[in-house]
């Protein structure tokens, strides 16, 4: 396709665009058969004709000089009464947004209850992931827990084992904090080579949310935990998998939260409703969902997801156990793999950076595969252990380019190249791949996932 043909809103006579935005751009949601499609198309055209003059006729009639038919012919929504308030008591995105949804990676897992769905990072803005698009990772399916019957127990090395209802937890002093949540296996498919086409699949096990809840330290103190012997906690879920993870007491007393709120509403069931652990900076598996129990102990617990999975295989055949921190990482979310640039000219290149060790200090962007770099603008807020949005101006001259971003966090750590990371960790680690991502831009405007 000629890049100059992809210019919506410009006056042009290409006949396949006569149908107008509300029709053409809303594509393929429900697999209607050809006959039905034709029928609908006809009926819709007739409707448009009666209301505002046929878009077909007017678009064809409009000479390039006359103006944009979308301006010259008022669209239906300018000439109708809209929907009443509360028509959709719990709001939904526009029907035109149907392309941006959570998606699975075919063949990654064999059963959908022990699987992953990836967030459509390629179309998201800012640093907060809409709750309905938050990635999913379940080991034994998701459950909708009755909050009235949910309990949190604290036991182990404590003076008083305690039980809290949701009533109790929501009375306690609460905090609201913005943090990223990244699966330890995010970008795991790319350790050896390029495996998937878009940022949704390379980096989509990532989200940013505002969490509201109680600091775990508040509860540990209420239970009178053993400050001398209590070195670890075990967090355990109430679902069938009874997910369990060991967390260092140091972390637990620092910024770990027992959260019920996410982005102003209660957690979604897929994300642990009504209670989950929030372990800022640490891989998602430790953020135990449907949290029912915290045990204080003097040894780590060696759970299934600390011995068989979430162990990083090193070149010498040793498995690294209890790898937790998500190190500084960044990715350009647009333009990114599987996208096409409209034409030559100006673009706002945008992406995300984050670090499990604190704040992002800066993000550099390269347009030539890492030879030269320019520093991007960081959007406020820049928060510790939270997604940080970066933007940088780019005028594409139509020649091939390789886009990369490189995050630096407040410890001074610089996001590594693939070569640097593989030199230490090999290619079979599965977990904790935070290498610099490359997107190749072809002269056609096609953007593709590559490694350099």
């Amino acid at each position: 396709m000629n890049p100059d043909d992809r210019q919506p809103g410009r006056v042009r006579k290409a006949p396949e665009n006569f149908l107008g935005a509300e029709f053409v751009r809303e594509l393929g949601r429900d697999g209607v058969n050809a006959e039905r499609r034709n029928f609908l198309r006809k009926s819709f055209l007739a409707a448009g004709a009666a209301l505002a003059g046929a878009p077909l006729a007017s678009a064809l009639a409009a000479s390039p000089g006359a103006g944009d038919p979308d301006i010259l012919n008022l669209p239906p929504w300018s000439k109708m009464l809209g929907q009443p308030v509360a028509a959709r008591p719990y709001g939904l995105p526009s029907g035109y947004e149907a392309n941006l949804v959570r998606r699975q990676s075919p063949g990654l897992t064999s059963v959908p209850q022990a699987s992953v769905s990836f967030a459509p990072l390629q179309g998201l803005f800012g640093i907060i992931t809409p709750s309905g698009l938050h990635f999913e990772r379940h080991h034994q399916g998701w459950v909708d827990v009755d909050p009235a019957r949910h309990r949190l127990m604290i036991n182990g090395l404590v003076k008083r084992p305690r039980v809290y209802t949701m009533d109790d937890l929501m009375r306690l002093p609460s905090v609201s904090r913005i943090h990223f949540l990244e699966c330890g296996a995010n970008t795991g498919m790319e350790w050896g080579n390029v495996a998937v086409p878009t940022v949704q699949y390379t980096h989509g096990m990532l989200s940013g949310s505002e969490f509201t809840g109680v600091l775990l330290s508040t509860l540990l103190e209420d239970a009178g935990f053993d400050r001398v012997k209590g070195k670890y906690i075990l967090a355990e879920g109430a679902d069938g998998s009874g997910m369990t993870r060991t967390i260092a007491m140091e972390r637990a007393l620092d910024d770990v939260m027992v959260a019920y709120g996410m982005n102003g509403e209660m957690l979604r069931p897929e994300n642990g409703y009504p209670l989950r652990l929030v372990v800022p900076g640490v891989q998602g598996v430790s953020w135990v969902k449907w949290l029912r129990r915290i045990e204080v102990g003097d040894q780590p617990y060696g759970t299934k997801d600390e011995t068989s999975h979430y162990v990083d295989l090193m070149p010498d055949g040793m498995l690294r156990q209890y790898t937790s921190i998500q190190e500084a990482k960044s990715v350009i979310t647009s333009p990114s793999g599987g996208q096409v640039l409209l034409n030559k000219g100006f673009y706002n290149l945008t992406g995300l950076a984050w670090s499990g060790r604190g704040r992002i200090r800066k993000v550099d962007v390269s347009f030539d595969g890492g030879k030269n770099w320019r520093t991007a603008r960081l959007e406020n807020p820049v928060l510790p252990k939270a997604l940080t949005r970066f933007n940088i101006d780019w005028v594409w001259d139509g020649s091939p380019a390789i886009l990369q971003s490189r995050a630096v966090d407040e410890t001074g750590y610089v996001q590594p190249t693939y070569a640097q990371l593989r030199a230490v960790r090999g290619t079979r680690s599965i977990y904790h791949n935070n290498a610099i991502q490359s997107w190749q831009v072809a002269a056609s405007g096609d953007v593709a996932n590559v490694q350099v």
Partner: protein
Amino acid sequence: MRALLLSMPVVLMLAVGLAFPAHAQFAGVGRDATDAEVKAWDIDVRPDFKGLPPGSGSVSAGEQLWTGKCASCHGDFGDDNHVFTPLVGNTTAEDIKTGRVAALKAGGSARTTFTKVNTVSTLWDYIHRAMPWDAPKSLSSDNVYAVLAYLLNLAEVVPADYVLSDRNIAEVQARMPNRNGMTRAHGLWEVNGKPDTQNQACMKDCQAEVKISSALPDYALNAHGNLADQNRTFGAVRGRVTDPKAAASKPAAAPANAVVTALLGARGCTGCHGMETKIIGPGFKEVAGKYQTRADVKAYLADKIAKGGSGVWGSAAMPPQAQLSKSELESIAAWLAAGAQP
């Protein structure tokens, strides 16, 4: 009166003191757990076997349980791949001696559960809390000992006549094939741990040459579906059309519901009808609900909309909607019959 007022705070303090022991910082919030409650939920088993309940189970009892409750997903010999990665395989007698699974170093071969797991407590704990996958927490302790004994036998860690119990499980630990295969020497546990890599934030002329080492082959471009349908159809970029068939059928693929809801606006229906609730006439969802089971619903509604009328939902009347073409009437009626989705 004065005496009464004075004594009130004292009474209150006493009451508080009784209800909430002096330690409770958050009066009235939470309570102490009973022993029975802790026992019911504290099910974890640690590598030092703290938490392991007494009991036992034989390999042969385990084989029976396995056939009935586990084999359908994990295969008769625990090496099946169709639901989850194999549990058993790729360990050797030599591994059992050294406690390091050689296959992990060699690379290439499948990582089964037994190649990785270093602590037998993990398997006991996990089977007990989560298996069978579709009926978790349904096995008794003795059942868990038995299926675990069977698994250990499949992995050639214990002989076929073995009876696994809380008393001999430490012996089994000493034979776990990858018991020495874990390391905690890395910088990813502590927030201020030492990173593996030391990249520099070089800004200019950082490398002479850039070589592409890996790219997605063309045949794999569409493996995740048509990428054009995974991006917005407006904005700075589009998704790439990776499915040629999807490209051909594109212009006609507008969703039926959006077409109809636009029509309802264009034809003035939404002045009197809400999507969910009544304005002058009933909400379209209400209409759809009312006729869910009516066989001739499409014909009935098409006719009623065209002719108008009153009395079904109240005394207000709907004027005849003569401006609708026959196909428009039919598409609206079909949309209502299908549940009036937005």
